[in-house]
């Protein structure tokens, strides 16, 4: 028996806020799950298995929280898998759920991812002193700023590109009813005037800390009706955090994953064939960096696509029409949101941030020190 086709049947997400003190972790997940099941026109009893993803347990202070969430996420009496692949985990969660369908193990699978950062302190959780490594001590922004500086030097990019990305993503986020930050009035000048946090990353070019959840229902060919998003390809790659000669700006793991993804999806020219891309951009400059890493442009050319406005809604390749990670960042769920938003685009269910006529879309997530990558391509047509 060959690999089974798999499709996204429904997508749901919570409202993302810095502190969702109105709900528990269970309530937060349930908000997303209920919307995903309604979107798929299914009920809990239709689900065969649940896959839950989230970033480090230290972010909420609960060890393996999927265990205590079993009832709330509808997993009791069913198979439950917990995925954790750092910041890419939301994407990996979708890919593992897709594997369960591709492998003929289950007909309908619920993928859930969440982070409730207000339960704990992510900055603390990320600032421990691991053996044999320099402690970061400054959160993710301090870690990634040198990569951005290196990119600007290598690509000879003008220094205003990051602000262009921030304005675009925040304005897109204003069209998304679930986004954490909704700033329709943000301007290039206001971003450039915001405080410098980690040179060259300014306050307005930085993702927020969010409480939020996302859920996706996946199904096989017999479970898929009209209007679903077919999974055309998935890819995951990992490389170590540090080693001599590692290219942290344009990591090989990302390039390898993208190459495998386009090959499986039968895509020769991603820029021409992908209609919308949800790319994991927690700091503005990662848009041009990942455009290159993903092969949408040659190396050193990504910023030109951004500068020309081609990544805006209505451009050649709308990037993060949902507002992206810059508008909502419930860490563990951020990847699944990218994958879910890509599906919503090809299902024509993206509301005010719908890309007209989107037929093929990319979902992308990365994690760790730019070393974990997961991606998928979804399409309106069967692969």
């Amino acid at each position: 028996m060959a690999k089974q086709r798999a499709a996204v049947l429904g997508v749901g997400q919570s409202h993302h806020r810095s502190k969702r003190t109105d709900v528990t972790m269970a309530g937060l997940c349930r908000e997303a799950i209920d919307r995903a099941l309604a979107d798929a026109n299914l009920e809990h009893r239709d689900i065969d298995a649940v896959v839950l993803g989230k970033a480090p347990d230290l972010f909420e202070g609960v060890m393996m929280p999927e265990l205590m969430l079993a009832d709330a996420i509808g997993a009791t009496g069913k198979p439950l898998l917990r995925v954790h692949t750092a910041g890419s985990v939301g994407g990996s969660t979708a890919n593992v759920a897709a594997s369960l369908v591709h492998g003929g193990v289950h007909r309908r699978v619920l993928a859930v991812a969440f982070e409730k950062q207000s339960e704990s302190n992510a900055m603390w959780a990320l600032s421990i002193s691991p053996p044999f490594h320099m402690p970061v001590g400054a959160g993710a922004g301090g870690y990634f700023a040198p990569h951005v500086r290196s990119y600007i030097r290598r690509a000879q990019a003008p220094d205003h590109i990051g602000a262009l990305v921030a304005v675009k993503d925040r304005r897109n986020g204003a069209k998304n009813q679930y986004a954490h930050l909704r700033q329709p009035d943000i301007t290039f000048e206001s971003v450039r005037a915001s405080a410098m946090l980690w040179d060259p990353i300014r306050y307005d070019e930085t993702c927020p800390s969010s409480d939020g959840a996302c859920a996706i229902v996946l199904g096989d060919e017999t479970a898929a009706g009209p209007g679903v998003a077919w999974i055309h390809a998935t890819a995951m790659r990992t490389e170590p955090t540090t080693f001599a000669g590692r290219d942290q700006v344009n990591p090989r793991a990302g390039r390898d994953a993208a190459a495998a993804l386009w090959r499986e999806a039968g895509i020769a020219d991603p820029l021409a064939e992908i209609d919308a891309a949800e790319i994991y951009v927690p700091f503005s400059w990662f848009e041009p960096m990942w455009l290159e890493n993903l092969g949408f442009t040659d190396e050193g050319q990504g910023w030109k696509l951004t500068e020309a406005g081609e990544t805006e809604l209505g451009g050649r390749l709308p990037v993060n029409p949902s507002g992206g990670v810059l508008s909502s960042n419930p860490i563990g769920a951020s990847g699944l949101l990218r994958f879910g938003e890509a599906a919503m685009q090809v299902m024509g269910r993206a509301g005010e941030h719908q890309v007209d006529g989107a037929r093929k879309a990319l979902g992308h997530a990365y994690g760790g020190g730019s070393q974990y990558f997961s991606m998928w391509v979804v399409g309106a047509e069967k692969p």
Partner: protein
Amino acid sequence: MNRVAVVSFAQAPNVRETHGTTNGVEMLVPIIREALGKANLAKQGVGFWCSGSSDYLAGRAFSFIAAVDAIGAFPPIHESHVEADAAWALFEAWVKIRTGEVDTALVYGFGKSSAGQLRRVLAMQLDPYTVAPLWPDAVSVAGLQARLGIDRGLWSEADMAAVAARARAANPDAQIHEAVTAEELLRRPYVANPLRRHDCAPVTDGAAVVVLAGGDRARELCARPAWITGIAHRVESAHLGARDLVTSPSTVAAAKDVGTDGVTLAELHAPFSHQEILLRHALGFGDEVTVNPSGGPLAGNPMFAAGLARIGEAATRLRGGQRALAHATSGPALQQNLVCVLEAD
């Protein structure tokens, strides 16, 4: 779909304390090499990697990322990780091979429990709003379960001691090895009434590796592959008061999925003596089934690797024509259970 088999197994010595990092690298490097060597497989020949571990056990975020250093993961690898016992990583790898995307996978799990106070660390798995603040530790929760079974006449302290005596005598290479009678064990003090020290798995640092391969590739890599004829798992409610703690409906359902007829050998991931009895009942085992010839978790219990090691131990012991069952558990009082049935040609 592709048939999938266990083709190689290696495990680090189960010891009370290692001096390595909580990232498992020092334990993993030699056994990844050993497992690949047994299958005559190069690192670059592994199609998919999947691991199981816990950040809370390691006392740091992203401990599994540093564990990747044990692989030498460059060129980049196709890899995933579960925050659970690596038996669930093996499940993910089994699915991956079934999709046909890859034909080999290396699965590993590691845990350095000596880095903290395990029974209190595991209390962090309980409901954080209403239960965990009371700090019922893992041994106390298991003690409640053991007491329920005794009160219902399902097992006795003597039955539990008999399980422990057999486990302690089973394996001279295990962390715990002792020739002792059940009567002698019953004279020892309680640690959490009705549990005595021998009723509880020891605190162990350890790691395990299993290599899987699909179809013809399995035959190329191994003289007698242990074919996985079925693997399934289920989770139960986290609310201890909502569960019937003296049985294991999740194990029963998983066993029904995979079919356990003809099983004569079993490796059960029962970290407490009464749980072995409970699982034998749930699985309907009689005297025809040899349970935990390795000594099982009562003789050595590397967290997040012990479930995977059950699959490896069962596969290694399998003789031609024989069927074996391997079981893994996760969560308080057997909340989540996985059953894997293996068969040799």
